[in-house]
């Protein structure tokens, strides 16, 4: 999968008046989602679940929001993806989990400060 994207045809862009409407209609719902993210991170920390690999992945991915570069959605999706390329020998279950857990960390728990503890977290 190339990280550098090829030139693409442009879709029809909205009129200038519609650009203001993007913010008018979009700001409050997105504001609510941002607060949900913050509250979720507070909640898992308060309940001692912040070390779950998915929460760690979420915090790492969220850094993309503030790096000032474009294509944030694509880059966050990539950060939450399995980066390997070979098919797996066996299935680990029917359901995906939303963040990738490297096989080497099976049975390992990553802490908020990056320390590694032995604990069962794998599906």
């Amino acid at each position, binding site marked *: 999968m190339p990280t550098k994207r090829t030139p693409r045809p442009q879709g029809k862009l909205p009129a200038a008046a519609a650009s203001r409407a993007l913010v008018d209609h979009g700001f409050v719902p997105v504001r609510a989602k941002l607060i949900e993210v913050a509250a979720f991170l507070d909640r898992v920390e308060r309940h001692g679940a912040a070390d779950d690999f998915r929460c760690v992945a979420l915090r790492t991915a969220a850094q993309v929001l503030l790096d000032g570069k474009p294509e944030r*959605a694509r880059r966050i999706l990539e950060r939450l993806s399995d980066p390997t390329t070979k*098919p797996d020998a066996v*299935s680990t279950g029917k359901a995906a989990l939303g963040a990738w857990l490297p096989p080497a960390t099976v049975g390992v728990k990553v802490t908020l400060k990056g320390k590694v503890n032995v604990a069962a977290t794998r599906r």
Partner: protein
Amino acid sequence: MRYIEPHGHMVSRTTDDYQAMITAGCQAVCEPAFWAGYDRSSVDGFRDYFRQLTEYEPARAAKFLLPHFSWLCINPKESEDLALAADVLAMIPEFLTKPNVLGIGEIGLNRNTRNELNVLEQHVDLAVKHDQLILVHTPHLEDKLKGTRLIVDLLRSHQGVKPGRVIIDHVEEHTIQYVLDQGFWAGITLYPDSKSSPPRAVDMLEICGRERIWLNSACDWGVSDPLAVPKTAFEMRRRGHSTEFVDQVLYQNPVRFLSQCPKFRLPNT
């Protein structure tokens, strides 16, 4: 407004949903074979399901004046059982001549395993042998990027596959351009909690263009919205896109792809 629902698992939906869809302007619904939420115990479970997709469900949709088409396969979630997959694959050809069957789908990968890849390749062979359209499911969440790459590699290496007759579904921002660059069609699925939202779908259309792309709700027994496609039309209009833009993405594009199968005919065409 008129639109096509090119991917809806209507066996899981109520008659209220059919009513709402036809009221919103739906002109046809297409139903790929999928996972029932549990593993079927034998090939006969699939035979019954294929009869439902090709006989009963079209009749139920017809009561609401909605043309119903279907796609057949054993889905990737049940592809770990190679013996069962072989039995189902051997049975599929007897259903391909049914009048509402458009092709093979939704095939693909779930957890990106060797067995899933093996069964995917057999489905592609079957589709090529019988000159069928192909509808591909890409994996969920963290598995989508790798799975899309594996699927595209397999399809591109198969000499009998024509990319213009394949739609790769459930694309998101990290896979859509790759799929389009390889010559395939791309499907954007609109889900409340995963895949794409209406605003993100319109973002992708603005960035990647509107050629070789369709939108679908993939409504099923999970959290999903059978009116997600017409609701996305509202998002387009709110951003200032023309009615012609909406019509191309929601109606003309799926008609163009699906009409490659001569069995896809709408009453008013």
